Protein backbone atom coordinates (compact mmCIF):
# COMPACT_ATOMS: atom_id res chain seq x y z
CA UNK A 1 0.00 0.00 0.00
CA UNK A 2 2.78 2.33 0.94
CA UNK A 3 4.54 2.08 -2.35
CA UNK A 4 1.31 2.09 -4.30
CA UNK A 5 0.12 5.30 -2.70
CA UNK A 6 3.53 6.84 -2.52
CA UNK A 7 4.54 6.29 -6.08
CA UNK A 8 2.79 9.16 -7.72
CA UNK A 9 4.42 11.65 -9.95
CA UNK A 10 3.50 13.39 -13.15
CA UNK A 11 -0.02 12.68 -14.31
CA UNK A 12 1.12 11.30 -17.63
CA UNK A 13 3.58 8.58 -16.75
CA UNK A 14 3.76 7.81 -13.07
CA UNK A 15 6.62 5.43 -12.52
CA UNK A 16 7.47 3.26 -9.57
CA UNK A 17 11.16 3.16 -10.30
CA UNK A 18 12.09 6.83 -10.19
CA UNK A 19 10.72 8.11 -6.88
CA UNK A 20 10.88 11.77 -6.00
CA UNK A 21 12.05 13.09 -2.64
CA UNK A 22 8.51 13.35 -1.29
CA UNK A 23 7.80 9.75 -2.20
CA UNK A 24 10.95 8.53 -0.49
CA UNK A 25 10.01 10.55 2.61
CA UNK A 26 6.51 9.06 2.44
CA UNK A 27 7.86 5.50 2.42
CA UNK A 28 10.33 6.21 5.22
CA UNK A 29 7.68 7.82 7.44
CA UNK A 30 5.38 4.93 6.61
CA UNK A 31 7.97 2.42 7.78
CA UNK A 32 8.52 4.39 11.00
CA UNK A 33 4.76 4.56 11.59
CA UNK A 34 4.42 0.84 11.00
CA UNK A 35 7.27 0.19 13.42
CA UNK A 36 5.70 2.38 16.09
CA UNK A 37 2.36 0.61 15.59
CA UNK A 38 4.04 -2.78 15.96
CA UNK A 39 5.76 -1.69 19.17
CA UNK A 40 2.40 -0.37 20.42
CA UNK A 41 0.80 -3.79 20.24
CA UNK A 42 3.82 -5.82 21.31
CA UNK A 43 5.29 -3.83 24.21
CA UNK A 44 4.56 -5.18 27.67
CA UNK A 45 4.51 -1.76 29.30
CA UNK A 46 1.02 -0.32 29.21
CA UNK A 47 1.81 3.38 29.24
CA UNK A 48 4.63 2.88 26.75
CA UNK A 49 2.07 1.35 24.41
CA UNK A 50 -0.02 4.52 24.67
CA UNK A 51 3.05 6.70 24.06
CA UNK A 52 4.06 4.64 21.02
CA UNK A 53 0.51 5.03 19.78
CA UNK A 54 1.16 8.79 19.79
CA UNK A 55 4.16 8.22 17.55
CA UNK A 56 2.12 6.04 15.19
CA UNK A 57 -0.77 8.52 14.98
CA UNK A 58 1.65 11.43 14.55
CA UNK A 59 3.37 9.50 11.76
CA UNK A 60 0.01 9.15 10.04
CA UNK A 61 -0.46 12.92 10.31
CA UNK A 62 2.90 13.41 8.59
CA UNK A 63 1.77 11.03 5.84
CA UNK A 64 -1.36 13.14 5.30
CA UNK A 65 0.85 16.23 5.12
CA UNK A 66 3.06 14.61 2.50
CA UNK A 67 -0.06 13.78 0.48
CA UNK A 68 -0.92 17.55 0.63
CA UNK A 69 -3.97 16.90 2.83
CA UNK A 70 -3.01 19.57 5.33
CA UNK A 71 -6.41 19.99 6.96
CA UNK A 72 -6.82 16.27 7.59
CA UNK A 73 -3.31 16.14 9.04
CA UNK A 74 -3.96 18.83 11.67
CA UNK A 75 -7.34 17.36 12.54
CA UNK A 76 -5.58 14.02 13.01
CA UNK A 77 -3.16 15.65 15.46
CA UNK A 78 -5.93 17.57 17.21
CA UNK A 79 -8.35 14.68 17.65
CA UNK A 80 -6.15 11.63 17.98
CA UNK A 81 -2.87 12.83 19.47
CA UNK A 82 -4.34 15.70 21.46
CA UNK A 83 -7.58 14.19 22.73
CA UNK A 84 -8.01 10.45 22.21
CA UNK A 85 -4.57 9.51 23.53
CA UNK A 86 -4.94 11.95 26.43
CA UNK A 87 -8.24 10.24 27.27
CA UNK A 88 -6.52 6.88 26.99
CA UNK A 89 -3.67 7.95 29.28
CA UNK A 90 -6.21 9.41 31.69
CA UNK A 91 -8.03 6.10 31.81
CA UNK A 92 -4.79 4.19 32.29
CA UNK A 93 -3.61 6.42 35.11
CA UNK A 94 -7.01 6.23 36.76
CA UNK A 95 -7.00 2.43 36.81
CA UNK A 96 -3.56 0.90 36.62
CA UNK A 97 -0.43 2.30 35.13
CA UNK A 98 2.51 0.51 36.71
CA UNK A 99 6.02 1.52 35.81
CA UNK A 100 7.73 -1.44 34.23
CA UNK A 101 6.25 -4.55 32.70
CA UNK A 102 2.71 -5.67 33.36
CA UNK A 103 2.63 -9.36 32.43
CA UNK A 104 -1.05 -9.67 33.30
CA UNK A 105 -1.94 -7.25 30.52
CA UNK A 106 -1.51 -9.96 27.89
CA UNK A 107 -4.78 -11.58 26.89
CA UNK A 108 -3.07 -14.59 25.22
CA UNK A 109 -4.86 -13.77 21.99
CA UNK A 110 -1.81 -12.96 19.93
CA UNK A 111 -2.43 -15.36 17.08
CA UNK A 112 -6.13 -14.57 16.53
CA UNK A 113 -5.31 -10.86 16.80
CA UNK A 114 -2.56 -11.24 14.24
CA UNK A 115 -4.92 -13.09 11.90
CA UNK A 116 -7.62 -10.43 12.23
CA UNK A 117 -5.09 -7.63 11.76
CA UNK A 118 -3.59 -9.22 8.64
CA UNK A 119 -7.03 -9.92 7.19
CA UNK A 120 -8.33 -6.39 7.76
CA UNK A 121 -5.09 -4.84 6.52
CA UNK A 122 -5.27 -7.01 3.43
CA UNK A 123 -8.88 -6.03 2.76
CA UNK A 124 -8.10 -2.32 3.23
CA UNK A 125 -5.03 -2.41 1.01
CA UNK A 126 -6.95 -4.28 -1.66
CA UNK A 127 -9.86 -1.82 -1.58
CA UNK A 128 -7.63 1.26 -1.60
CA UNK A 129 -5.35 0.00 -4.35
CA UNK A 130 -8.28 -1.11 -6.43
CA UNK A 131 -10.22 2.13 -5.96
CA UNK A 132 -7.37 4.53 -6.62
CA UNK A 133 -5.42 2.53 -9.17
CA UNK A 134 -5.60 5.21 -11.82
CA UNK A 135 -5.72 8.26 -9.55
CA UNK A 136 -2.52 10.18 -9.09
CA UNK A 137 -1.80 13.12 -6.84
CA UNK A 138 0.47 15.78 -8.23
CA UNK A 139 2.56 16.32 -5.12
CA UNK A 140 4.45 19.31 -6.51
CA UNK A 141 1.39 21.18 -7.73
CA UNK A 142 -1.14 23.19 -5.70
CA UNK A 143 -2.39 21.49 -2.55
CA UNK A 144 -5.39 19.31 -3.37
CA UNK A 145 -6.25 18.66 0.25
CA UNK A 146 -6.35 22.26 1.41
CA UNK A 147 -9.08 23.29 3.83
CA UNK A 148 -11.04 24.95 1.06
CA UNK A 149 -10.91 21.93 -1.24
CA UNK A 150 -11.75 19.52 1.58
CA UNK A 151 -14.62 21.69 2.78
CA UNK A 152 -16.29 22.19 -0.57
CA UNK A 153 -15.80 18.51 -1.46
CA UNK A 154 -17.26 17.38 1.85
CA UNK A 155 -20.27 19.69 1.81
CA UNK A 156 -21.06 19.44 -1.89
CA UNK A 157 -20.50 15.76 -2.64
CA UNK A 158 -20.65 14.01 0.71
CA UNK A 159 -23.24 15.91 2.74
CA UNK A 160 -25.49 12.91 3.37
CA UNK A 161 -22.80 10.63 4.88
CA UNK A 162 -21.57 13.63 6.88
CA UNK A 163 -25.01 14.30 8.33
CA UNK A 164 -25.62 10.60 8.96
CA UNK A 165 -22.33 10.43 10.86
CA UNK A 166 -23.24 13.43 12.97
CA UNK A 167 -26.57 11.85 13.88
CA UNK A 168 -24.70 8.68 14.84
CA UNK A 169 -22.34 10.67 17.07
CA UNK A 170 -25.28 12.50 18.62
CA UNK A 171 -26.92 9.16 19.38
CA UNK A 172 -23.72 7.96 21.02
CA UNK A 173 -23.56 11.16 23.08
CA UNK A 174 -27.15 10.84 24.26
CA UNK A 175 -26.57 7.17 25.00
CA UNK A 176 -23.54 7.98 27.13
CA UNK A 177 -25.51 10.54 29.12
CA UNK A 178 -28.39 8.11 29.65
CA UNK A 179 -26.03 5.36 30.81
CA UNK A 180 -24.19 7.61 33.24
CA UNK A 181 -27.43 8.99 34.73
CA UNK A 182 -28.90 5.51 35.10
CA UNK A 183 -25.89 4.45 37.15
CA UNK A 184 -26.24 7.42 39.46
CA UNK A 185 -29.97 6.90 40.00
CA UNK A 186 -29.54 3.20 40.73
CA UNK A 187 -26.75 3.58 43.27
CA UNK A 188 -28.83 4.84 46.25
CA UNK A 189 -31.44 2.14 45.64
CA UNK A 190 -28.90 -0.58 46.33
CA UNK A 191 -28.36 0.79 49.78
CA UNK A 192 -24.78 -0.41 49.84
CA UNK A 193 -22.04 1.83 48.64
CA UNK A 194 -20.38 0.52 45.52
CA UNK A 195 -17.56 -1.81 46.41
CA UNK A 196 -14.22 -0.11 46.12
CA UNK A 197 -12.68 -1.21 42.84
CA UNK A 198 -9.94 -3.72 43.25
CA UNK A 199 -6.73 -1.80 43.21
CA UNK A 200 -3.47 -3.15 41.98
CA UNK A 201 -0.35 -1.82 43.55
CA UNK A 202 0.41 1.10 41.29
CA UNK A 203 4.14 0.98 41.88
Amino acid at each position, binding site marked *: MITALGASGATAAPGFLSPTGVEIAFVLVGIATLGAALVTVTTRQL*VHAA*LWLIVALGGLAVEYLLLTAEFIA*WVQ*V*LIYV*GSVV*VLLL*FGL*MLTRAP*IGRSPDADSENRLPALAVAVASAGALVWVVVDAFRTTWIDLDGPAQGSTKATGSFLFRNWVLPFEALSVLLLAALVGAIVLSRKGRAAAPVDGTPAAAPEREDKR
Partner: protein
Amino acid sequence: MNDALDVALRIVIVFAVFMVLPLVVGQTEHKVMAHMQGRLGPMYAGGFHGWAQLVADGVKFAQKEDIVPAGADRKVFRLAPAVALLPYLLVLVAIPIGPGEGAVGQVVDAGIFFVLAVMGVGVLGSLMAGWASANKFSLLGGLRTAAQLLAYELPMLLAAASVAMAAGTVSLPGILDAFEWWWLPWQIIGALVFFVAGLAELQRPPFDMPVADSEIIFGAYTEYTGLRFALFLLAEYAGIVVLCGLTTVLFLGGWHGPLGADGLGWVWTLLKTGILAFVVIWLRVSYPRLREDQLQKLAWTTLIPLALAQIALTGIVKVAIN
Protein backbone atom coordinates in the same frame (compact mmCIF):
# COMPACT_ATOMS: atom_id res chain seq x y z
CA MET B 1 16.37 37.01 -1.20
CA ASN B 2 17.85 33.56 -1.37
CA ASP B 3 15.28 30.94 -0.32
CA ALA B 4 17.48 28.98 2.05
CA LEU B 5 18.74 32.19 3.65
CA ASP B 6 15.15 33.40 4.02
CA VAL B 7 14.08 30.19 5.76
CA ALA B 8 17.15 30.23 8.02
CA LEU B 9 16.54 33.86 8.94
CA ARG B 10 12.91 33.17 9.83
CA ILE B 11 13.87 30.19 11.98
CA VAL B 12 16.52 32.24 13.78
CA ILE B 13 14.07 35.09 14.42
CA VAL B 14 11.31 32.79 15.68
CA PHE B 15 13.80 31.01 17.92
CA ALA B 16 15.09 34.32 19.28
CA VAL B 17 11.53 35.46 20.02
CA PHE B 18 10.90 32.10 21.66
CA MET B 19 13.93 32.54 23.89
CA VAL B 20 13.41 36.22 24.77
CA LEU B 21 9.65 36.83 25.17
CA PRO B 22 8.99 34.11 27.79
CA LEU B 23 11.87 35.47 29.87
CA VAL B 24 10.45 38.98 29.57
CA VAL B 25 7.07 37.67 30.74
CA GLY B 26 8.77 35.83 33.59
CA GLN B 27 10.63 38.89 34.77
CA THR B 28 7.48 41.00 34.43
CA GLU B 29 5.67 38.44 36.56
CA HIS B 30 8.33 38.78 39.28
CA LYS B 31 7.99 42.54 39.38
CA VAL B 32 4.25 42.90 38.80
CA MET B 33 3.38 40.31 41.43
CA ALA B 34 5.77 41.95 43.86
CA HIS B 35 4.31 45.42 43.39
CA MET B 36 0.74 44.14 43.57
CA GLN B 37 1.63 42.53 46.90
CA GLY B 38 3.31 45.67 48.24
CA ARG B 39 6.93 44.55 47.94
CA LEU B 40 9.78 45.17 45.54
CA GLY B 41 10.64 41.79 44.08
CA PRO B 42 14.16 40.94 42.93
CA MET B 43 16.36 44.05 43.21
CA TYR B 44 20.03 42.98 43.13
CA ALA B 45 20.83 40.77 40.15
CA GLY B 46 22.11 42.89 37.28
CA GLY B 47 21.91 46.16 39.16
CA PHE B 48 18.89 48.01 37.80
CA HIS B 49 15.77 46.67 39.57
CA GLY B 50 17.05 43.12 39.37
CA TRP B 51 16.60 42.82 35.61
CA ALA B 52 18.98 39.86 35.40
CA GLN B 53 17.18 37.78 38.01
CA LEU B 54 15.96 35.21 35.49
CA VAL B 55 19.45 34.89 34.01
CA ALA B 56 20.73 34.23 37.51
CA ASP B 57 17.94 31.70 38.02
CA GLY B 58 18.96 30.01 34.78
CA VAL B 59 22.57 29.77 35.94
CA LYS B 60 21.37 28.32 39.22
CA PHE B 61 19.20 25.72 37.46
CA ALA B 62 22.08 24.75 35.17
CA GLN B 63 24.36 24.14 38.14
CA LYS B 64 21.97 21.81 39.94
CA GLU B 65 22.45 18.07 39.86
CA ASP B 66 20.27 16.26 37.35
CA ILE B 67 18.37 13.71 39.43
CA VAL B 68 16.10 10.96 38.16
CA PRO B 69 14.20 9.13 40.93
CA ALA B 70 15.22 5.51 41.38
CA GLY B 71 11.77 4.10 40.65
CA ALA B 72 11.09 6.36 37.71
CA ASP B 73 10.74 5.39 34.08
CA ARG B 74 14.00 7.02 33.04
CA LYS B 75 13.39 7.48 29.31
CA VAL B 76 9.92 8.97 29.60
CA PHE B 77 11.02 11.07 32.58
CA ARG B 78 13.85 12.59 30.57
CA LEU B 79 11.78 13.09 27.43
CA ALA B 80 8.83 14.83 29.11
CA PRO B 81 10.25 18.41 29.36
CA ALA B 82 11.04 18.45 25.65
CA VAL B 83 7.53 17.25 24.80
CA ALA B 84 6.14 20.03 26.98
CA LEU B 85 8.28 22.80 25.49
CA LEU B 86 8.65 22.09 21.78
CA PRO B 87 4.97 22.44 20.76
CA TYR B 88 4.98 26.10 21.82
CA LEU B 89 8.02 26.75 19.63
CA LEU B 90 6.16 25.17 16.71
CA VAL B 91 3.04 27.25 17.37
CA LEU B 92 5.06 30.45 17.44
CA VAL B 93 6.14 29.76 13.86
CA ALA B 94 2.56 30.17 12.62
CA ILE B 95 1.55 33.34 14.51
CA PRO B 96 1.60 36.40 12.25
CA ILE B 97 3.00 39.50 13.87
CA GLY B 98 2.41 42.00 11.08
CA PRO B 99 0.71 42.33 7.68
CA GLY B 100 2.02 40.40 4.71
CA GLU B 101 3.97 37.18 4.34
CA GLY B 102 7.14 38.72 5.68
CA ALA B 103 5.84 38.96 9.24
CA VAL B 104 5.00 35.33 9.93
CA GLY B 105 7.40 32.43 10.37
CA GLN B 106 5.47 30.16 8.05
CA VAL B 107 2.03 30.64 6.50
CA VAL B 108 -0.01 27.58 7.45
CA ASP B 109 -3.15 27.05 5.41
CA ALA B 110 -5.19 25.56 8.26
CA GLY B 111 -3.57 27.83 10.82
CA ILE B 112 -6.18 27.63 13.59
CA PHE B 113 -6.22 23.87 13.51
CA PHE B 114 -2.43 23.77 13.46
CA VAL B 115 -1.95 25.98 16.52
CA LEU B 116 -4.71 24.37 18.60
CA ALA B 117 -3.63 20.84 17.66
CA VAL B 118 0.00 21.45 18.47
CA MET B 119 -0.79 23.31 21.70
CA GLY B 120 -2.79 20.29 22.85
CA VAL B 121 0.26 18.09 22.34
CA GLY B 122 2.18 20.10 24.94
CA VAL B 123 -0.02 18.73 27.69
CA LEU B 124 1.28 15.24 26.90
CA GLY B 125 4.57 16.42 28.42
CA SER B 126 2.87 17.01 31.77
CA LEU B 127 1.12 13.66 31.54
CA MET B 128 4.37 11.84 30.78
CA ALA B 129 6.12 13.67 33.61
CA GLY B 130 3.34 12.85 36.05
CA TRP B 131 3.32 9.18 35.23
CA ALA B 132 7.05 8.60 34.85
CA SER B 133 8.00 10.21 38.18
CA ALA B 134 6.80 7.16 40.18
CA ASN B 135 5.24 9.47 42.73
CA LYS B 136 1.63 9.57 43.86
CA PHE B 137 1.53 13.36 43.90
CA SER B 138 2.94 13.51 40.41
CA LEU B 139 0.42 10.97 39.16
CA LEU B 140 -2.43 12.95 40.70
CA GLY B 141 -1.08 16.07 39.04
CA GLY B 142 -0.95 14.27 35.71
CA LEU B 143 -4.53 13.05 36.18
CA ARG B 144 -5.77 16.54 36.93
CA THR B 145 -3.89 17.87 33.92
CA ALA B 146 -5.60 15.37 31.65
CA ALA B 147 -9.06 16.03 33.10
CA GLN B 148 -8.52 19.77 32.72
CA LEU B 149 -7.34 19.49 29.14
CA LEU B 150 -10.29 17.32 28.16
CA ALA B 151 -12.71 19.82 29.67
CA TYR B 152 -11.21 23.00 28.25
CA GLU B 153 -10.11 21.90 24.78
CA LEU B 154 -13.71 21.93 23.55
CA PRO B 155 -14.69 25.54 24.46
CA MET B 156 -11.36 26.74 23.10
CA LEU B 157 -12.00 25.03 19.78
CA LEU B 158 -15.58 26.30 19.59
CA ALA B 159 -14.50 29.88 20.28
CA ALA B 160 -11.82 29.65 17.61
CA ALA B 161 -14.35 28.14 15.20
CA SER B 162 -16.54 31.20 15.71
CA VAL B 163 -13.75 33.50 14.49
CA ALA B 164 -13.07 31.21 11.56
CA MET B 165 -16.75 31.43 10.62
CA ALA B 166 -16.67 35.21 10.86
CA ALA B 167 -13.59 35.50 8.69
CA GLY B 168 -14.51 32.71 6.30
CA THR B 169 -11.03 31.24 6.55
CA VAL B 170 -8.99 29.14 8.97
CA SER B 171 -5.67 30.73 8.10
CA LEU B 172 -4.34 33.11 10.75
CA PRO B 173 -3.08 35.82 8.32
CA GLY B 174 -6.37 35.42 6.42
CA ILE B 175 -8.37 36.10 9.58
CA LEU B 176 -6.35 39.25 10.23
CA ASP B 177 -6.84 40.43 6.65
CA ALA B 178 -10.60 40.08 7.06
CA PHE B 179 -10.68 41.76 10.48
CA GLU B 180 -12.88 44.82 11.04
CA TRP B 181 -13.03 46.83 14.26
CA TRP B 182 -16.64 45.85 15.01
CA TRP B 183 -15.58 42.23 15.32
CA LEU B 184 -14.37 43.17 18.76
CA PRO B 185 -17.85 43.59 20.33
CA TRP B 186 -19.23 40.89 18.02
CA GLN B 187 -16.75 38.23 19.15
CA ILE B 188 -16.20 39.40 22.71
CA ILE B 189 -17.86 36.34 24.32
CA GLY B 190 -15.77 34.04 22.20
CA ALA B 191 -12.67 36.02 23.15
CA LEU B 192 -13.37 35.63 26.85
CA VAL B 193 -14.11 31.92 26.50
CA PHE B 194 -10.95 31.40 24.47
CA PHE B 195 -8.76 33.27 26.91
CA VAL B 196 -10.20 31.55 29.99
CA ALA B 197 -9.98 28.11 28.39
CA GLY B 198 -6.42 28.87 27.32
CA LEU B 199 -5.50 29.84 30.88
CA ALA B 200 -6.91 26.53 32.05
CA GLU B 201 -4.98 24.65 29.40
CA LEU B 202 -1.78 26.34 30.55
CA GLN B 203 -2.65 25.49 34.17
CA ARG B 204 -2.23 29.11 35.18
CA PRO B 205 -3.97 30.43 38.29
CA PRO B 206 -6.87 30.39 39.03
CA PHE B 207 -6.84 27.11 37.10
CA ASP B 208 -3.64 25.70 38.62
CA MET B 209 -5.27 22.73 40.30
CA PRO B 210 -2.80 20.29 38.65
CA VAL B 211 0.11 22.00 40.42
CA ALA B 212 -1.73 22.96 43.62
CA ASP B 213 1.19 23.21 46.05
CA SER B 214 -0.90 22.89 49.20
CA GLU B 215 -2.31 19.54 48.07
CA ILE B 216 0.02 17.77 45.68
CA ILE B 217 3.30 19.72 46.10
CA PHE B 218 3.94 20.64 42.46
CA GLY B 219 1.88 18.08 40.63
CA ALA B 220 3.55 16.43 37.69
CA TYR B 221 6.77 18.44 38.16
CA THR B 222 7.37 17.45 41.80
CA GLU B 223 10.33 15.16 41.08
CA TYR B 224 12.02 17.47 38.60
CA THR B 225 15.05 19.58 39.33
CA GLY B 226 17.74 21.55 37.56
CA LEU B 227 17.49 22.23 33.85
CA ARG B 228 14.54 19.91 33.23
CA PHE B 229 12.49 21.78 35.79
CA ALA B 230 13.58 25.05 34.18
CA LEU B 231 12.34 23.73 30.85
CA PHE B 232 8.91 23.11 32.34
CA LEU B 233 8.86 26.65 33.72
CA LEU B 234 9.97 27.99 30.36
CA ALA B 235 7.16 26.00 28.74
CA GLU B 236 4.68 27.71 31.05
CA TYR B 237 5.90 31.18 30.11
CA ALA B 238 6.14 30.29 26.44
CA GLY B 239 2.56 29.09 26.78
CA ILE B 240 1.53 32.48 28.12
CA VAL B 241 3.19 34.21 25.16
CA VAL B 242 1.53 31.84 22.70
CA LEU B 243 -1.92 32.11 24.29
CA CYS B 244 -1.79 35.92 24.45
CA GLY B 245 -0.45 36.10 20.90
CA LEU B 246 -3.22 33.81 19.67
CA THR B 247 -5.95 35.74 21.47
CA THR B 248 -4.53 38.92 19.96
CA VAL B 249 -4.51 37.48 16.47
CA LEU B 250 -7.91 35.78 16.64
CA PHE B 251 -9.96 38.30 18.59
CA LEU B 252 -8.15 41.62 19.03
CA GLY B 253 -7.19 42.29 15.45
CA GLY B 254 -3.46 41.53 15.69
CA TRP B 255 -1.55 44.15 13.73
CA HIS B 256 -4.61 46.35 13.18
CA GLY B 257 -4.50 49.52 15.23
CA PRO B 258 -6.01 52.97 15.29
CA LEU B 259 -2.96 54.38 13.52
CA GLY B 260 0.26 53.38 11.85
CA ALA B 261 -1.11 50.39 9.95
CA ASP B 262 1.88 50.31 7.61
CA GLY B 263 5.20 49.46 9.19
CA LEU B 264 4.08 49.62 12.80
CA GLY B 265 1.75 46.61 12.78
CA TRP B 266 4.15 44.46 14.79
CA VAL B 267 4.14 47.09 17.56
CA TRP B 268 0.38 46.69 17.91
CA THR B 269 0.67 42.91 18.04
CA LEU B 270 3.36 43.05 20.69
CA LEU B 271 1.49 45.70 22.68
CA LYS B 272 -1.76 43.72 22.75
CA THR B 273 0.11 40.52 23.59
CA GLY B 274 1.91 42.32 26.39
CA ILE B 275 -1.30 43.71 27.87
CA LEU B 276 -2.88 40.25 27.81
CA ALA B 277 0.20 38.77 29.47
CA PHE B 278 -0.15 41.42 32.17
CA VAL B 279 -3.76 40.32 32.67
CA VAL B 280 -2.59 36.72 33.03
CA ILE B 281 -0.20 37.77 35.80
CA TRP B 282 -2.86 39.99 37.36
CA LEU B 283 -5.28 37.06 37.56
CA ARG B 284 -2.64 34.98 39.31
CA VAL B 285 -2.31 37.56 42.06
CA SER B 286 -5.98 38.36 42.46
CA TYR B 287 -7.99 35.12 42.18
CA PRO B 288 -7.98 32.10 44.50
CA ARG B 289 -7.52 28.67 43.01
CA LEU B 290 -10.65 26.91 41.79
CA ARG B 291 -11.45 23.49 43.22
CA GLU B 292 -11.42 20.52 40.86
CA ASP B 293 -15.21 20.21 40.68
CA GLN B 294 -15.58 23.98 40.22
CA LEU B 295 -13.07 23.74 37.37
CA GLN B 296 -15.06 21.06 35.59
CA LYS B 297 -18.35 22.80 36.27
CA LEU B 298 -17.08 26.08 34.85
CA ALA B 299 -15.98 24.36 31.66
CA TRP B 300 -19.00 22.21 31.00
CA THR B 301 -21.84 24.39 32.25
CA THR B 302 -20.56 27.89 31.53
CA LEU B 303 -17.87 28.04 28.87
CA ILE B 304 -19.24 25.49 26.41
CA PRO B 305 -22.79 26.97 26.35
CA LEU B 306 -21.27 30.45 26.00
CA ALA B 307 -19.08 29.29 23.14
CA LEU B 308 -22.05 27.66 21.43
CA ALA B 309 -24.07 30.85 21.87
CA GLN B 310 -21.20 32.79 20.31
CA ILE B 311 -21.19 30.44 17.33
CA ALA B 312 -24.94 30.92 16.90
CA LEU B 313 -24.53 34.70 17.13
CA THR B 314 -21.70 34.62 14.62
CA GLY B 315 -23.80 32.57 12.24
CA ILE B 316 -26.82 34.89 12.52
CA VAL B 317 -24.80 38.07 11.98
CA LYS B 318 -22.85 36.46 9.16
CA VAL B 319 -26.06 35.52 7.35
CA ALA B 320 -27.60 38.94 8.08
CA ILE B 321 -24.73 40.97 6.59
CA ASN B 322 -24.52 38.80 3.51
